[in-house]
C-alpha cells in the first residue's frame, strides 16, 4: 500500500461526513479561539497596567482554567458521536482486509488534520479577535484604547499544547475503542435492537420529590446565610431531579398517555407518543445535560450582567458616601470629646482649603453588638456562629433618634422604651425586641435609613434600633458580654459626605484628610479616646470595584457563549444521529400509508418537544432560582430586585432567540437526512 493512501482515506472520510465533521471542526476552532483570547487577556501587560486590570486578570486566569477543562470534556463528548458514525466505515475497511493498524493510521491522519485545521485557523482568528476582546476590556475598565495588534507567544504556546493534548487523548480513546471491537460489531454498531423502555416509577417519583423540595427551599428561604449554605444543596437537588425526570419521568408520562386508549389511538398522538418513549429513553440524559447547561448559562449571564449594570449601586451600598470616616470607641463620652471636635475641624478645614462643600452629609453615633434572636430576644451570650443557630444571627445597631432625625430630615418623637426599626437583608416582624436580659423595647414603626458599609459587607442581616435616650441606653448595654465573657458592645462614630468632584480630586481630598487625621492622632490629644479610625473613599475603590464586576461580567458572557455553543452542538448531534436512526422508520410509515405531510407533522411535534423541553425546564428552574439569586446578589451589595428581574428576563429572551435559531438549522439537517432516504426507497 502506498503511503499516501492513509491521508487520502482520512481526508475523504472527513469530507464525505461533512455534516458531522464540519460542526465538530467549527467547535474545535471556537474553543481554541476562546481559550487563546482569555489567556491572552489574562497575560496582557496593557490590561495589567490599567486601573483595576490586575483584579480582572485574576478573574480571567480562573476563567482560563474553566474553559480549558470544559473544552476537553466537550470535545470528547462530541467526538463520541463521530466515532459512533465512523465505526461502520472502519468495520468495512476491516472486512476488506485493512488491519487495525492500518485503520489506526487513518485515524491518526484524521486527528492530525482536524487538529491542524483547528489550531491554525483558531489561533489566527484568536489573534484577530483578541484585539476586539481587549477593546471591550479596556472599555469596561474605562481606560484609553491602544490601537495595535499584539501577539502573545506564550498564549499561543499554551493553547497549542493544551489542545494537542486534548486531541491526543481523543485519538487514544478512539484507538482504544477500535482495539476492543471486532469487525462484525463495527459494521452493525449503529443498529442494535432496542427493547421498549419500561417506566421507572420510583425514579420518577423521587425526581418529582427532589425538584419540589429544591423549589420549596428556593422560594421559602429568608435568611441570606441559609441561602448561602443551602444554595449548593438546592443546585445538586435540581440537577439530580432534572436527570431523573428527563430519564424516568418522561417515559412514565408517555406510558400514562399510552394507557389512556381514547387519547393514544388518535392520528395526532399515536405515532408521536410511541416514538417519544424511545426518544426520551435514548436522549433523556443528553436533554437533562442540555437543560442544566442552559440553566447555568442563564443564571451566570443574568447575574453577572446584573452585577455589572448595577455596579455603581453595588459600590454605593458598600461605600455609601464619597468619603466615609469611621471611629470606634469604648466610652460614650468619646463622642463629645475634644478629639472628636478636633477631627470635625480637620474635615471642615480641608474642605474649606479645597473650596468644597459637604453634600448628603451624615454624622451619627451608634452602639453595636451581634446577637442570636430567639422569640424576640437577642442573646449576645449565645455562641451563634459556632452553634447551630447561625441562621438566627443578627448584627444589632443602636442609633440616637436625634441623629436619625437630622440625617433623614424627619421629626420623629419617641417615649419611654419605644424604638423605630430598620433592617437589612431580611425583615423583623415582632412587636417587641429585647437584648439579653434587659427590659424589652416596643417597636413604634418600621422606617428607612441610610446604607452602611459594614452591614453591606457581612452576610448576616442587620437590625437598627433608633432610641430616644441614647446616653442612657449606651450606658445600660455597656455591660453586654459574648459567649466567651468578653465585652460585646462597642460604640462607633460615622462621619460621611459626598463631594461634587472628579475621582482624582476626591482621592486627593481623602488622602489629605487621612494624613492630617494621623498627624493629629500622633500629637497625642486624648490618645485612647478612639481605639481605631478608618477612612474609605468611593473614588479610590471604584476602579477596583468596576474591574472586579467587569471581569465577572466579561467572564460570564464568555462562558455563556461557550456553554451555548456546547448546548447547541449537543442538540445538533442528537438530532443528526436521531435522523439516521429514524430514516427506516419513516420509510415504513410511508409504505403503511402516512402522507409526507402527516409524517412531517408528527416529526415536527416530536422534534419541537425534544428541543424545547430543556429550554422550558431551564426557564422554570430559573424562575424558581430567582429568589435565591436575588438574595445572593444582596451580598454583593445589589439590592435592586427589579433590575435583576428585568436583566434575567432579557437574558432569557435573547437565549430563547438563539435557541430558536439553532432549532431552525438543526431541524433542517434532520429533515434533509430523513427525507434523503425517500429517493433511495423508490430506486
Amino acid at each position: 500500500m502506498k503511503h499516501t493512501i492513509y491521508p487520502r482515506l482520512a481526508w475523504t472520510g472527513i469530507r464525505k461526513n461533512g455534516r458531522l465533521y464540519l460542526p465538530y471542526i467549527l467547535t474545535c476552532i471556537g474553543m481554541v479561539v476562546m481559550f487563546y483570547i482569555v489567556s491572552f487577556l489574562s497575560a496582557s501587560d496593557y490590561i495589567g497596567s490599567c486601573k483595576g486590570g490586575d483584579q480582572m486578570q485574576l478573574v480571567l486566569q480562573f476563567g482560563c482554567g474553566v474553559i480549558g477543562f470544559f473544552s476537553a470534556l466537550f470535545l470528547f463528548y462530541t467526538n463520541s458521536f463521530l466515532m459512533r458514525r465512523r465505526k461502520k466505515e472502519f468495520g468495512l475497511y476491516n472486512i476488506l482486509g485493512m488491519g487495525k493498524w492500518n485503520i489506526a493510521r487513518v485515524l491518526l491522519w484524521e486527528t492530525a488534520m482536524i487538529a491542524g485545521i483547528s489550531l491554525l485557523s483558531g489561533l489566527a482568528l484568536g489573534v484577530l479577535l483578541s484585539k476586539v476582546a481587549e477593546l471591550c476590556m479596556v472599555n469596561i475598565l474605562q481606560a484609553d484604547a491602544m490601537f495595535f495588534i499584539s501577539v502573545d507567544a506564550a498564549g499561543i504556546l499554551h493553547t497549542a499544547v493544551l489542545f494537542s493534548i486534548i486531541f491526543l487523548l481523543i485519538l487514544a480513546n478512539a484507538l482504544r475503542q477500535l482495539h476492543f471491537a471486532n469487525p462484525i460489531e463495527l459494521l452493525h454498531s449503529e443498529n442494535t435492537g432496542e427493547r421498549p423502555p419500561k417506566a421507572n416509577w420510583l425514579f420518577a417519583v423521587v425526581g418529582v420529590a427532589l425538584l419540589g423540595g429544591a423549589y420549596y427551599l428556593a422560594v421559602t428561604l429568608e435568611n441570606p446565610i441559609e441561602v448561602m449554605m443551602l444554595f449548593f444543596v438546592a443546585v445538586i437537588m435540581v440537577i439530580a431531579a432534572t436527570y431523573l425526570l428527563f430519564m424516568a419521568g418522561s417515559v412514565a408520562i408517555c406510558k400514562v398517555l399510552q394507557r389512556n386508549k381514547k387519547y393514544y389511538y388518535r392520528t395526532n398522538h399515536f405515532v408521536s407518543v410511541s416514538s417519544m418513549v424511545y426518544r426520551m429513553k435514548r436522549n433523556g440524559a443528553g436533554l437533562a445535560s442540555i437543560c442544566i447547561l442552559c440553566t447555568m448559562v442563564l443564571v451566570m449571564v443574568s447575574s453577572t450582567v446584573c452585577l455589572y449594570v448595577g455596579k455603581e449601586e453595588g459600590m454605593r451600598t458598600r461605600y455609601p458616601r464619597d468619603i466615609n470616616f469611621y471611629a470606634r470607641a469604648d466610652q460614650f463620652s468619646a463622642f463629645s470629646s475634644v478629639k472628636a471636635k478636633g477631627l470635625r475641624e480637620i474635615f471642615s478645614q480641608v474642605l474649606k482649603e479645597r473650596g468644597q462643600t459637604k453634600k448628603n452629609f451624615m454624622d451619627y453615633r451608634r452602639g453595636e453588638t451581634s446577637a442570636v434572636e430567639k422569640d424576640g430576644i437577642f442573646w449576645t451570650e449565645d455562641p451563634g456562629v459556632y452553634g447551630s443557630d447561625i441562621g438566627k444571627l443578627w448584627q444589632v445597631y443602636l442609633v440616637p433618634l436625634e441623629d436619625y432625625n437630622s440625617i433623614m430630615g424627619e421629626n420623629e418623637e419617641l417615649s419611654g422604651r419605644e424604638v423605630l426599626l430598620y433592617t437589612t437583608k431580611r425583615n423583623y416582624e415582632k412587636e417587641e425586641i429585647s437584648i439579653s436580659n434587659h427590659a424589652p423595647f416596643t417597636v413604634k414603626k418600621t422606617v428607612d435609613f441610610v446604607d452602611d458599609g459594614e452591614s453591606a459587607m457581612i452576610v448576616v442581616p442587620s437590625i437598627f434600633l433608633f432610641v430616644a435616650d441614647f446616653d442612657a441606653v449606651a450606658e445600660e448595654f455597656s455591660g453586654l458580654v459574648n459567649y466567651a465573657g468578653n465585652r460585646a458592645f462597642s460604640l462607633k462614630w460615622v462621619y460621611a459626605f459626598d463631594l461634587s468632584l472628579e475621582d482624582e480630586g476626591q482621592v486627593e481630598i481623602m488622602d489629605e484628610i487621612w494624613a492630617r487625621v494621623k498627624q493629629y492622632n500622633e500629637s497625642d490629644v486624648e490618645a485612647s479616646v478612639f481605639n481605631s479610625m478608618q477612612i474609605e473613599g468611593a473614588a479610590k475603590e471604584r476602579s477596583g470595584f468596576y474591574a472586579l464586576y467587569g471581569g465577572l461580567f466579561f467572564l460570564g458572557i464568555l462562558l455563556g457563549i461557550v456553554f451555548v455553543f456546547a448546548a447547541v452542538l449537543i442538540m445538533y448531534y442528537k438530532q443528526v444521529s436521531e435522523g439516521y436512526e429514524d430514516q427506516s422508520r419513516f420509510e415504513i410509515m410511508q409504505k403503511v400509508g402516512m402522507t409526507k405531510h402527516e409524517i412531517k407533522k408528527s416529526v415536527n411535534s416530536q422534534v419541537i418537544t425534544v428541543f424545547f423541553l430543556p429550554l422550558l425546564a431551564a426557564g422554570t428552574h430559573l424562575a424558581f432560582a430567582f429568589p435565591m439569586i436575588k438574595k445572593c446578589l444582596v451580598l454583593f451589595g445589589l439590592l435592586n430586585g427589579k433590575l435583576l428581574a428585568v436583566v434575567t428576563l432579557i437574558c432569557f429572551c435573547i437565549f430563547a432567540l438563539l435557541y430558536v435559531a439553532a432549532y431552525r438549522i438543526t431541524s433542517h439537517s434532520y429533515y434533509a437526512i430523513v427525507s434523503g432516504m425517500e429517493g433511495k426507497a423508490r430506486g
Partner: protein
Amino acid sequence: MSILEAQNVKKIYTARFGGNKVEALKNVSFTVEEGEYVAVMGESGSGKTTLLNILAALDKPTAGRVLLDGQDIGAIKESAVAAFRRNNLGFVFQDFNLLDTFSLEDNIYLPLVLMGRRYDEMHNRLMPIADRLGISDLLKKYPYEVSGGQKQRAAVARTLITRPKLVLADEPTGALDSKSTDELLDIFGDVNRMGQTIVMVTHSVKAASRAGRVMFIRDGEVFHQIYRGNSTNEELYQKISDTLTLLANRKTSAAIG
C-alpha cells in the same frame, strides 16, 4: 367484474446524468377480476418491481393507464395518493415493515388510527382477524420478540384490517423459512377464498403454485400466463417450472444465436 385493469402501461426511466433511457416496462396490459389470486413472476430486471410500484401508486407510468375499480390511479393528485392507498390497497412486504416502537397490536392498528377510527371499532375488527391468523396471544408483544413468520402474520393482519379492495404482496415469503412459508401461503389461500383479491410478486415457484393464475413478465412485457383451471398445486408447480425452464432456455439460445 374486473377490479384492476392495466392498459398499455409503459415506463421509461431516464438516468439523472447523461440522459440514458431505460425502458423498464414496454407495453403491459392485463386485468384482474374481483376475488382473483394472481402471482407475477419474472427474473431480476424483468420489470416486475416497476410494475408493482405503479400498481401501488408509488410511481406513475410514462404512458398507459391503471384502473382500480374503474378509477385511474395515475390521475390521482399527489396530495390524495397516500389517502387513496390507505383506503383501497393493502401491502405485504418481504421485510414485514413493522415499526419496532409499536407492539404488534399497535402496528396492526396503525392504518386505522391514520384513518381516524375509534379504538372500540379497531378492537372489534382486529379480534376475528387475529384469531384467524393465530396471533391473538402475541398482540402485546413487540416485533423483536416474535419470529419472522409471526411478524409476517401481523403484517398481513395490518393489511386485512383496512378491508382493502386489493392486496399487493411483494415477495411475502422471501424472508421466511419453509414452515412459515407454508403457514403464510395457507393464510393467503384462506383469505382469497373469503373473497379477497390478491396480486403477489414472487420468485418462489412454491408460492406461485398456490395462486389462481400465474403471470410471467420478461423484458418489460407480459410473456405468458398460466391459469390454474382444475390443476392441483403440484400440477401447477410443474407447469410453472416448465415455463421457467423454457424462459431460461430461450434466453440462453438467444444469447448464443
